[in-house]
C-alpha cells in the first residue's frame, strides 16, 4: 500500500511537470491554431539557463529560474515572430508544422554547439529534503512537493488571468474567432505573441523542475517530455487549460504506476495505449468541447 502511495505521489509530481508543459502546447494551439513542436526544446533551453545561472554565475535558485523565464519568454516571442508569423495565413498548415519541427532541431543543435553533448549534472533547485511519514516508511521529497504545488499555483493563476483580465479575455476571443476579435479592437498578433511568451515562460519553470527531479541535462532532454506533454494536451482536449492539467496528471500517474508495477520497458507503450483508447471514445479529448455552430 505504501509502495503504491509512493509511486502515485511521484506520478502526480511527474504529471505536474507534463501538465505545465502541456499548458504551453494547449494555449498556443488554442490561440494560434498551430502545434509548436519546438515547445519541448524550450524546456531544455530553460534547463540550461537555470544551470548557467546557478552553477556558472552563482545565482540563487529562484533568481536562476527567473533568469531562465525571462530568457525563454524572449526566445518564445522571437521564434514566433521570425519563424511562425510569416507563415500565418499560408494556405497549408503543414508549412508551419514543419517549420516547428525544424525549429526543434535548430534549438537542439544550437545547444549542442554551446553546451556540447556532454550531460550536465543538474543540482536541484529545491534544497528542502522533504517530509517523512508513517515512521519513515513514506518519504516524500521536497522537489516532489514543490513541483505539485507549483503546478497547482500555475493552473489557478492562469485560470484567473484568462477569466479576470482584459488580456485573458482577448486570448479567449482570438482562440474562437480571429476576425470577430479584430472587430472588437483586439490586436491578434500581439495576443499571439503574449501566448507564446506565457507558454515559454512556463516552459522555463517546467525545465527547472524536470531537471531537478531527473538531474541529467543534455540538448535532447526536452524532446521526450515535450512529446509526452503533447500527448497529455491531446488527452485532456487540446485547447483546454483544465484539460491540459488533467491530461498531464493522468499521464504522469499512469507512467509511474506502469513503470513500478507492470514493466519499465512497456511504460511508454501503455501511456500511448491510454491515449488511443481515450481518443476512440472521446475524439475531442477528456475536456474538449464539441463546437456547435448556429446559423
Amino acid at each position, binding site marked *: 500500500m505504501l509502495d503504491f502511495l509512493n509511486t502515485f505521489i511521484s506520478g502526480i509530481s511527474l504529471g505536474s511537470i507534463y501538465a505545465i508543459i502541456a499548458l504551453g502546447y494547449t494555449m498556443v494551439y488554442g490561440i494560434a491554431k498551430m502545434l509548436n513542436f519546438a515547445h519541448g526544446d524550450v524546456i531544455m533551453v530553460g534547463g540550461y539557463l537555470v544551470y548557467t545561472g546557478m552553477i556558472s554565475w552563482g545565482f540563487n535558485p529562484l533568481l536562476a529560474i527567473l533568469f531562465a523565464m525571462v530568457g525563454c519568454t524572449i526566445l518564445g516571442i522571437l521564434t514566433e515572430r521570425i519563424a511562425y508569423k510569416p507563415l500565418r495565413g499560408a494556405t497549408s498548415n503543414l508549412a508551419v508544422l514543419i517549420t516547428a519541427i525544424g525549429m526543434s532541431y535548430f534549438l537542439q543543435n544550437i545547444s549542442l554547439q554551446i553546451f556540447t553533448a556532454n550531460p550536465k549534472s543538474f543540482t536541484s533547485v529545491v534544497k528542502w529534503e522533504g517530509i517523512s511519514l508513517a515512521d519513515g516508511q513514506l518519504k516524500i521529497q521536497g522537489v516532489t512537493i514543490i513541483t505539485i504545488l507549483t503546478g497547482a499555483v500555475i493552473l489557478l493563476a492562469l485560470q484567473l488571468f484568462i477569466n479576470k483580465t*482584459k488580456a485573458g*479575455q*482577448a486570448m479567449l476571443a482570438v482562440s474562437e474567432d480571429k476576425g470577430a476579435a*479584430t472587430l472588437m*479592437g*483586439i490586436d491578434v498578433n500581439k495576443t499571439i505573441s503574449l501566448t507564446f511568451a506565457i507558454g515559454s515562460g512556463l516552459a522555463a519553470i517546467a525545465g527547472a523542475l524536470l531537471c531537478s527531479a531527473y538531474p541529467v541535462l543534455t540538448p535532447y532532454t526536452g524532446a521526450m517530455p515535450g512529446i509526452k506533454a503533447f500527448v497529455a494536451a491531446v488527452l485532456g482536449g487540446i485547447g483546454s487549460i483544465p484539460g491540459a492539467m488533467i491530461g498531464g496528471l493522468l499521464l504522469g500517474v499512469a507512467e509511474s504506476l506502469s513503470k513500478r508495477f507492470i514493466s519499465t520497458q512497456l511504460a511508454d507503450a501503455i501511456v500511448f495505449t491510454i491515449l488511443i483508447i481515450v481518443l476512440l471514445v472521446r475524439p475531442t479529448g477528456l475536456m474538449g468541447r464539441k*463546437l456547435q455552430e448556429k446559423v
Partner: protein
Amino acid sequence: MSMLEVKDLEVNYGMIKAIKGVSFHVEAGEIVALIGANGAGKTTILHTISGLIPAAAGSIVFEGNDVRRIPGYKLTGLGMAHVPEGRRVFAEMTVLQNLRLGAYTRKDSAETEETLEMIYQHFPRLKERRSQLAGTLSGGEQQMLAMGRALMSKPTMILMDEPSMGLSPLLVKEVFSIIEFCHSQGITILLVEQNARMALNIADRAYVLEVGKISMEGKANELLESEAIKKAYLGG
C-alpha cells in the same frame, strides 16, 4: 466631409475581381443601405472597410483616417463598429463576457458600465441571460448580442451585415427597430441587407450593388418606387 468616403474601391479574392471600382459615401447621422443579390459583393465591401481584408485599389476614408493604412483592430477605437454576417458572437464565452469584449478599446470603466446598463435596459433578454454561454442563445438573441456588443464600443458608426438573415418575420421587425434605436442615439449606420424592402424603409439613401459594381443609387423612398428595383428586389 463625409463620415465615410469610399472611392474606386477594388477588392480581389485571389484571381477573382470581387469588387470592381465602387464609390459611395455615408454622411454623419445617415442610414445608408447597400442592397443587392447574394454574391454581389456587399459583405466583401464591409470587410474591406473594417480592414479584415485588404483592398486592391481605391481609397477608404473614415473620419479623415486612411483606412487602408491602419491595421483593422485600430478602427474600433476610432469609432467604427461592425456587426458581422452570421453574428459571430463568441459562443464559448458568456453573454456578459461578449458584451465586455465589445468595450475592449474603452478606458473609462464608469462610462462603460453606463453603456452596459443602457444595453440591458433595451435588451432585457441579454440581462436575463448574461451568465449563459452565447452559443446557447437562439439566433435572434445572438443577433441582439452582436448588436449590443457593437454598441459597447460607443461607436459613431456601425456597419451592419445582414442583421435579418435567418430570422423569423417577427424578429426581423425587432432587429430593424433596434437599428432605428441605434440611429436615434446619433449613430451613423451602413446597412447591408438582402431584405431590400425593410432596408429601404428605414434608410435615407441606398446603393444597389450588382456583381461588384454599383448599378443604381438614390434616396431610399425613391428607390422603393422605382420599377426596376421593384422587379429585381422587391418581388414584383
